[in-house]
């Protein structure tokens, strides 16, 4: 069994209100080392059998057309994670 990992982030030029709220909370809890936070999404697409180039291509298409909205988000990574 393998998993295709898709990572989606808000576009850099778009203010990320959730990340900003997290960034505001961190120093209040004593975590003072971080200048800013951006919050994104990670999808784990489990594959039965082998991850062929065709499967990866499907994952890339799904990432672009469904898992992200190109108006506000970028797909930053589509990669395979082999499970133990």
């Amino acid at each position: 069994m393998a998993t295709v990992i898709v990572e989606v982030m808000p576009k850099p030029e778009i203010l990320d209100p959730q990340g900003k709220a997290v960034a505001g909370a961190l120093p209040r809890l004593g975590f003072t080392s971080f200048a800013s936070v951006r919050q994104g999404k990670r999808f784990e697409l489990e594959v039965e059998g082998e991850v062929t180039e065709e499967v990866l291509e499907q994952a890339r298409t799904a990432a672009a057309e469904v898992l992200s909205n190109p108006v506000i988000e970028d797909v930053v990574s589509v990669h395979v994670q082999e499970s133990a």
Partner: protein
Amino acid sequence: MTARVGVVTFPGSLDDRDAARAIRLAGGEPVRLWHADSDLAGVDAVVLPGGFSYGDYLRAGAISRFAPMMASITDAANGGMPVLGICNGFQILCESHLLAGAMVKNEHLHFVCKDQTLRVENADTAWTHQFGAGEEIVVPLKNQDGQFIADERTLDELEGEGRVVFRYVADSSDGGTRGRNPRAGGNPNGSRRDIAGITNARGNVVGLMPHPEHATEQGFGPGTDGLRFFSSAIAATLATA
């Protein structure tokens, strides 16, 4: 003869009954449509109501876009049928690429619920032709993911082609909102260029975050400014029938 206006119910729609009631109060015949069907039942126009379809999972409106009913509505909208998306319905229209841009969380992260003053910027669409251009109206606004976003080129295009239909404007009730969002007068959620609603190039598809269906009867909500959305579309469909 009267116009038949469909109202689509998705899993998680909240305001479908209010939308149907608004259509009836405006003189139309509401027709309930189910997201999993694809038959438009011969309606003359369609309203996508507010709510949290599919729990807003993934992104608001992102999963509803793939409902069988949305494929039929997209075809009909491309053929000129009037379609109005309210709140979650607006988000679905953006995800469906029937309207430009997208909605993200309100800038201040709070859920907003208030009576909102809007300026009608385009009084020529299927849903706004009974308003005057520049007229100010008041309808309720209630959302979490209401911040309208598009890139600068798209925003310039929307403005240049008169496709901004509604803009948020400040009013005397704005004290609370201003406190949360000091950099924008009447803008309750950080929407780019104070945009509350837009249309497509043809003017038959309109989406807005505020809720006209909640302002259709005296004594319930801030007034009856919402009625003219529905009576506009009813008149438009009868004129072309």
